[in-house]
C-alpha cells in the first residue's frame, strides 16, 4: 500500500487530493488565527479547488521529472517507457508521447461533448412547451451555463488541440512535441477543469448560472457555484496556453529539413495562427476570472461601482479574450478542411499562400472587434461604429478561404466519403453562420435581435455546423491513422446525413423565432412560439440520437474495423507516409521535404522523401518541376 502511495499513479493522486483538502483547511485555519470555527466552508472550497488539481497532477506524476531535476537528484533514465501505448491502461497515466496525448485529448473532450449534449437535450425537453416542464428557472440557467462552458472550454478548444497534437509532429516530420512533459501536464489539467465544472451542480444554490460569459456583477453576487466556473476556467486556460506555446515552439524549431513555412500543410498553419491567438488572448480571460475571484473571495472592488469599480471593464477584458476565442474555435477547423478538401478533390489547394495569409489576417483583425459583443451594454457609443466596420471587414479573409476552397474543388475528382461530406457540410453551414454573423455586425439589426434566439442560431451555425462538422471531418479523416483501423463508411454517411438534416431542422427555425423576439436564456416563453419550439425540440432529440451512430461507429471500428493501410487516402502529407498507427517515434529517420504538401494531380510531385527509400534524382526535384513517372 505504501509503495502504491509513493509511486506515481492514481493511488498517489487520490492521496494527494486528500492531502490538498487537508492542507487547504490548515492554511485557512492558521490564517484565521487558529480558530476552527472561523474557517468558512466556501473559503475552504475555493482554496481546495485551486490546490487539489495541482496536487492531483503531482500525484499522477506530472511533475516528478522536474522536481528531481530541480533538486539535483538523478532524473529517471530516459528509457522512453513513457512513450507509446500497448493497452488502454497506458492512456490513464502520464504519458509523454504526443500520439497518446492526442488520443487522450480527443476521447476526453468527446466525453465532455456527450455530457454537454445531454444538458442540451434536457434544456430542449424543458423548452418543448411553454410553462414549466422538468426544471425550474434557476436550474435551467445552470444548465445552459454549464452546457456552454463545457462545450467551449472542454470540447471544442481541446479537441482541436488533441487532433493537432496527434497530427502536427507527424506532419512536420518531428519525433514528438518540443516539450513532451509540458504536453502531458496540458492534457491532465483538462479532466481536472471538467470535473470542477461538473462538481458545481453539487454546490449549495446550484451550479453556476451566469452563462459562459459570467458577466459581473452577476457573477460576483451569484451563489457559490460560480467559483467552480471561475476556477475551472483558469485550469482550462492554463492548459490551452501551455499547449499553444508547445505548438509554436514545435512548429518553429522542429520542422523537417526542407519544410519551409510555405511548404507546411495548412493544418499546421492553422494551428500556428490559433496558437498565436491563444498565447496572446487567453491571459485576458484568466485575468477577468482573477478579478471575479478576488471580488468574491476577498472583497476587492474591481466591479463595485459604489467603491469606484467599473462593471463594463469586465466585458471589455472578457471579450478581448473571448472574441479571439471564437477564432481559436474555428481556425484549426479551417486547417482540417483544407487537408480534407485537397485530398478528396485530388487537387492542390487553390491560393495556398492566400490561405496562409488570410489566417494571419484573422489573427490580427480578431483583436480589433471585441466590443461588437457589447453593442447594447451601454458602453461609450463612439466605440460602436469602428467595431461595426472592423467586424464587417473580418469577413473578408474568411471569404477568401471560402472561395479558395470552392476553387480547390472546381473540376476536381470529388470523392464523397464521410470526411468529405462533413467538409462540404461545413462549407454550406459555415457560410450560413457567416452570413448571419455579418448581419449581426450591423448595428441597427443587432440591437433588434440582441439576446434573442437569432444569436443562439448564429452561434450554433458557426460552432456546430462550423467547428463540430470540421471536428467530425477530422476525426473520420485521421481515424485510420490514429487507430490503425478503418471506420464503417456506411455508418459514417448515415451519421452525416442524419446530423446534417436534424441540425438544420433544429437551428434554422431559431433565426425566425429570434427575429420575432423570443429571448434566449429564459426557461419559459410566450404561447406564440409554442409550435416552433416543439418542432425544434423533436428535431434536437433526433440530432442527439444521430450522435450515437457516431459513437457506435467509433467504438466498434476501433475494436474490430478493417485494418487500415498506411495511406488509405493517397495523401501526400507526411503523416500518411508512415504506418497506421505510426511507429512509437514516428519516423525511423527524419524525412526530407522537397515540395509543397498538396501537389495532387501534378505528375511526379513528391512532398517528402525518406532516407533509405529508393528515390530517383528526378523525384527529389521540387514538386511539379519535372514530369516523371508518378510515384503513387
Amino acid at each position: 500500500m505504501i509503495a502504491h502511495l509513493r509511486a506515481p499513479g492514481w493511488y498517489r493522486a487520490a492521496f494527494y487530493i486528500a492531502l490538498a483538502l487537508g492542507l487547504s483547511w490548515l492554511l485557512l485555519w492558521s490564517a484565521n488565527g487558529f480558530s476552527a470555527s472561523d474557517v468558512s466552508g466556501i473559503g475552504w472550497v475555493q482554496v481546495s479547488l485551486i490546490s487539489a488539481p495541482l496536487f492531483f497532477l503531482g500525484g499522477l506524476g506530472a511533475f516528478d521529472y522536474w522536481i528531481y531535476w530541480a533538486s539535483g537528484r538523478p532524473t529517471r533514465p530516459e528509457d522512453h517507457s513513457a512513450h507509446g501505448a500497448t493497452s488502454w491502461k497506458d492512456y490513464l497515466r502520464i504519458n509523454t508521447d504526443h500520439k497518446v496525448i492526442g488520443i487522450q485529448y480527443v476521447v476526453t473532450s468527446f466525453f465532455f461533448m456527450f455530457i454537454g449534449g445531454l444538458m442540451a437535450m434536457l434544456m430542449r425537453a424543458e423548452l418543448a412547451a411553454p410553462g414549466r416542464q422538468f426544471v425550474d428557472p434557476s436550474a435551467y440557467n445552470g444548465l445552459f451555463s454549464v452546457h456552454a462552458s463545457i462545450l467551449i472550454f472542454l470540447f471544442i478548444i481541446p479537441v482541436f488541440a488533441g487532433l493537432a497534437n496527434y497530427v502536427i509532429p507527424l506532419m512536420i516530420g518531428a519525433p514528438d512535441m518540443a516539450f513532451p512533459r509540458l504536453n502531458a501536464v496540458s492534457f491532465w489539467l483538462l479532466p481536472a477543469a471538467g470535473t470542477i465544472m461538473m462538481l458545481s451542480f453539487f454546490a449549495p444554490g446550484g451550479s453556476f448560472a451566469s452563462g459562459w460569459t459570467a458577466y459581473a456583477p452577476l457573477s460576483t453576487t451569484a451563489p457559490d457555484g460560480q467559483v467552480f466556473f471561475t476556477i475551472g476556467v483558469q485550469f482550462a486556460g492554463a492548459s490551452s496556453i501551455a499547449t499553444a506555446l508547445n505548438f509554436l515552439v514545435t512548429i518553429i524549431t522542429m520542422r523537417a529539413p526542407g519544410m519551409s513555412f510555405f511548404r507546411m500543410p495548412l493544418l499546421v498553419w492553422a494551428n500556428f495562427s490559433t496558437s498565436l491567438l491563444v498565447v496572446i488572448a487567453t491571459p485576458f480571460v484568466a485575468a477577468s476570472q482573477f478579478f471575479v475571484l478576488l471580488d468574491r473571495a476577498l472583497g476587492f472592488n474591481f466591479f463595485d461601482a459604489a467603491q469606484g469599480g467599473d462593471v463594463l471593464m469586465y466585458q471589455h477584458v472578457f471579450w478581448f479574450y473571448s472574441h479571439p476565442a471564437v477564432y481559436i474555435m474555428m481556425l484549426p477547423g479551417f486547417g482540417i478542411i483544407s487537408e480534407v478538401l485537397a485530398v478528396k478533390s485530388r487537387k492542390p489547394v487553390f491560393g495556398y499562400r492566400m490561405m496562409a495569409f488570410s489566417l494571419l489576417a484573422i489573427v490580427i483583425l480578431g483583436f480589433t472587434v471585441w466590443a461588437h459583443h457589447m453593442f447594447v451594454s451601454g458602453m461609450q457609443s463612439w466605440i460602436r461604429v469602428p467595431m461595426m466596420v472592423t467586424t464587417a471587414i473580418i469577413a473578408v479573409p474568411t471569404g477568401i478561404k471560402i472561395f479558395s476552397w470552392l476553387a480547390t474543388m472546381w473540376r476536381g475528382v470529388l470523392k464523397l466519403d464521410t470526411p468529405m461530406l462533413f467538409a462540404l457540410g461545413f462549407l454550406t453551414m459555415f457560410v450560413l453562420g457567416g452570413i448571419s454573423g455579418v448581419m449581426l455586425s450591423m448595428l441597427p439589426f443587432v440591437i433588434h435581435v440582441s439576446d434573442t434566439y437569432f444569436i443562439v442560431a448564429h452561434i450554433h451555425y458557426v460552432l456546430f455546423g462550423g467547428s463540430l462538422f470540421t471536428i467530425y471531418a477530422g476525426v473520420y479523416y485521421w481515424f485510420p491513422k490514429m487507430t490503425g483501423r478503418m471506420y464503417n463508411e456506411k455508418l459514417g454517411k448515415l451519421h452525416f446525413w442524419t446530423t446534417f438534416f436534424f441540425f438544420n431542422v433544429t437551428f434554422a427555425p431559431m433565426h425566425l423565432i429570434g427575429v420575432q423576439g423570443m429571448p434566449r436564456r429564459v426557461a419559459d416563453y410566450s404561447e406564440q412560439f409554442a409550435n416552433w419550439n416543439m418542432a425544434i425540440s423533436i428535431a434536437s432529440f433526433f440530432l442527439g440520437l444521430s450522435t450515437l451512430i457516431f459513437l457506435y461507429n467509433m467504438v466498434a471500428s476501433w475494436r474490430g474495423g478493417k485494418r487500415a493501410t498506411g495511406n488509405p487516402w493517397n495523401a501526400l502529407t507526411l503523416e500518411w507516409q508512415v504506418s497506421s498507427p505510426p511507429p512509437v517515434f514516428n519516423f525511423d529517420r527524419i524525412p526530407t521535404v522537397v515540395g509543397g504538401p498538396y501537389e495532387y494531380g501534378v505528375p511526379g510531385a513528391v512532398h517528402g522523401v525518406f532516407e533509405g527509400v529508393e528515390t530517383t534524382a528526378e523525384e527529389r526535384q521540387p514538386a511539379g518541376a519535372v514530369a516523371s513517372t508518378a510515384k503513387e
Partner: protein
Amino acid sequence: MEAATVHHHHGPPEANRSSRIHPALLGMLLFIISEVMVFGAFFTAYFFIRVVVPGAEWFPFDGFELPVAVAGVNTAILLSSSLTLHWAQVSIKNGNHTGLKVGMLLTFLLGATFLFVQINEYATLTREGITPQAFAQGTIFYGLTGLHGAHVFIGLLILLVVTIRAFRGHYSPDHHDGVEVPGIYWHFVDVMWIVVYTTVYIL
C-alpha cells in the same frame, strides 16, 4: 512510399533543428508574451478605474498617499538584482564559478529584500486605511503590485533552484542554459516592475 515500419529503437530520431533559436528560449519568450498580456489585463482594469470611471481620482486623494520614495529605493534594489544576475551569467560563460555563485546569491538576496520591503509597505498602507476592500483604487493598487509580487515570488523560487544548482556545480561554460532561461524571466519581472512603478506611483 510505405517507408517507416516498426523497428526496435533505443530512442527517437533526433529532431531537425529548423530554427537557430533554442526551443527553451523560444518557449520562455512566448511565455513572457503571455505574462505581458496578464499584466495588460490588469492595466486595463487600472485604466478603467483611474480614467474611465466618472469622477475617478488617483493617489494622493483624501489624504491617502503612496510611499513613492520608499518604493523608489525598492525599485533600485530590484533593478540592481538584474545587474548582479547579468554578472553571474557572464561569469559562468567565462568559467568563473565563484562569480556565478556570488552573483546568484546576491540576486536572490536582493529579490528577497524587494519582496520584504513590499510586504512592509502593504502593512503600513493597511494601517493607514488603504486596503483593497476600501475603494477601487486600493483594489487595483494591490492587484497590480500583488500580481507583480507573485511573479517576484515565483522568480525567487526559480532563482533559489538555480542558486542551489550553481553551488552544486551543475553549470559550466558550455552548459548554462539553466542560468540563461530563468534569467530572462527575472529580467522580465524587473522590467515589468518599472512599468508598474511608473504607472501606479509616479504618473
